[in-house]
């Protein structure tokens, strides 16, 4: 298997402070790959770097063998990378299903002319996109919200909605930033099932998460960050027994 995402010597400094420093790892297609670490360890910064929202100070990121240095987030999306956010990024000025349909943006290219006159081809594509979006919402478990305004939805539902939107883009790799934060036990269990379902369908999943039970249960490999540096990397079993990790988490 070849590496789908490869990170080499990644560095990101904000005004002299290194949020991420010398991080290297690779994720293979089909894996569930989790990044853990205490608050402020640089996990979200790492995700922001990978998805092109930040430009690295040093180092390189390869997506499917191609350097992402000059690519904008939307160009990464075109190459099959999609994500969710720790602080949710939902378009509150749209309905739930429109948010998910937004995820199908890349599959729905239509010309301005077609759009202005609302030609039949557009209507057909829209109907299909809507059907697909509804399926996805059902799939992630917020199917009852379809035409609800996003601003009127509960936190947990929005979390799932964001995943549905990312899935709508049919990504090869999906990055989930703390999807379980703020969810109760039942919701977390549902989330675990969902992530497993996504992975089973062949989508690579990268995960930042605090919930150890969840992470240990579903990850193929884990990356542990501490103060921006890699503390450990390996399978859940290896991580569980790594003395550095134990010291960092328990001994502080």
């Amino acid at each position, binding site marked *: 298997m070849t590496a789908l995402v490869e990170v080499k010597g990644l560095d990101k400094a904000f005004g002299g402070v290194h949020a991420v420093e010398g991080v290297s790892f690779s994720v293979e297609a089909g894996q569930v790959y989790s990044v853990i670490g205490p608050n402020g360890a640089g996990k979200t910064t790492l995700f922001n770097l990978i*998805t092109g*929202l930040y430009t690295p100070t040093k180092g390189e990121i390869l997506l499917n063998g191609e350097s992402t240095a000059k690519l*904008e*987030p*939307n160009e*990464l*999306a*075109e190459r099959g990378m*999609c*994500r969710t*956010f720790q602080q949710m*990024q*939902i*378009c*509150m*000025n*749209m309905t739930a299903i*429109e948010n998910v*349909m*937004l*995820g*199908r*943006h*890349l599959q*729905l*290219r*239509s010309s*301005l002319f077609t*759009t*202005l*006159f*609302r030609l039949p081809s*557009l209507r057909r*594509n*829209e*109907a299909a*996109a*809507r059907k697909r979006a509804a399926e996805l919402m059902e799939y992630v478990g917020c199917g009852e919200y*379809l*035409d609800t305004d996003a601003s009127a939805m509960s936190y947990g539902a929005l979390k799932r909605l*964001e995943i549905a*939107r*990312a899935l*709508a*883009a049919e990504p090869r790799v999906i990055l989930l930033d703390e999807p379980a934060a703020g969810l109760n036990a039942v919701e977390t269990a549902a989330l675990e099932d969902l992530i497993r379902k996504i992975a089973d369908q062949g989508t690579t999943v990268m995960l930042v998460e605090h919930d150890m039970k969840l992470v240990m249960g579903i990850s193929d490999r884990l990356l542990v960050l501490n103060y921006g540096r890699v503390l450990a990397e390996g399978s859940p079993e290896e991580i569980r027994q790594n003395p550095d990790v134990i010291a960092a988490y328990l001994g502080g």
Partner: protein
Amino acid sequence: MLNNLMQSRLRGLVILALILLILPVFLGNPFHYELVTQMAIIAATVVGLNLLVGFAGQISLGHAGFFGLGAYFTGIATGTYGWPSVPALVVGAIVVGFIAWIVGRPILRLKGHYLSMATLAVGFIIAIILNNERALTGGPDGMPVPAFEVFGWELSAFGSYSLFGIDIEGFQAWYIFASVVLLVAVWFALNLIESPIGRALRSVHGSEVAASVVGVNTAKYKSLVFVISAVYASLMGSLYAHFQGFITPAVASFEFSILFITMVVLGGMGSTFGVILGAVVLKLLPQVLADFQELEHVMFGLILMLTMIFMPKGLLPTLTIFFSKRMRRKAGGEA
């Protein structure tokens, strides 16, 4: 629900068409027709501006610049160089769209107040050029614009025409023309909003980051909507010039830009029919307040302020919420 949504789109359009159809019953004299014709032209402009401001969330305090460019392009092309109206209108829109594209690319990277500042500057520069290039534009005293004409057939607010055997006056013909233009402008806007392009535009407002990670090229879409709204403004500016018969650089002025954005905000940002209401109210208000003489400005300022304080979402959205709440309460009471 999809059917519902579809219907609600066209329903608004149908209601607007009905209003435009029955409105002449209430119009007492040619001046009223003129006023409504102007309202329709201005309303179509702000429907376009609303795509930028209400849906894509980008502030523009210089939109009258594009309106003025369209008006002057038409004035100069038809008046000075004798072009027919339609080519002048179209070429003007293309030129203005191109200018908007050139200007838009660098300034749309700006956010919030900086964007409003940059658009304000663009509007001002356009107004200053129109004011100073006397040889071309007639300078601050303005220039006359010939009547709208297609293949030698003139549409003048003062002529008399025969349409399908019915005799109508010029001002009525203009009213019909402007109504159709408004309906088409609204139809296009509605089609645009309810489409992948429209979702991309709205996502730029909702969350630019979210939009970009699902593949929306936000810079491109901001540019696109800027150009579209500028083209709307240019086309309407051209019609306005023909209708008024005379234009001055005031059509590109900062005051006019502020008026446009106020119509959008007052009517309800992001509500196509709301901004039309905004245009109607702000066009009608000075005429109503004209009778108050000295107090005109005080009252205008006060009305503007109070409306925005108590209806921050704008007239139509607030009224819609109000009425639907009352309906619901009534329904609850009966049950």
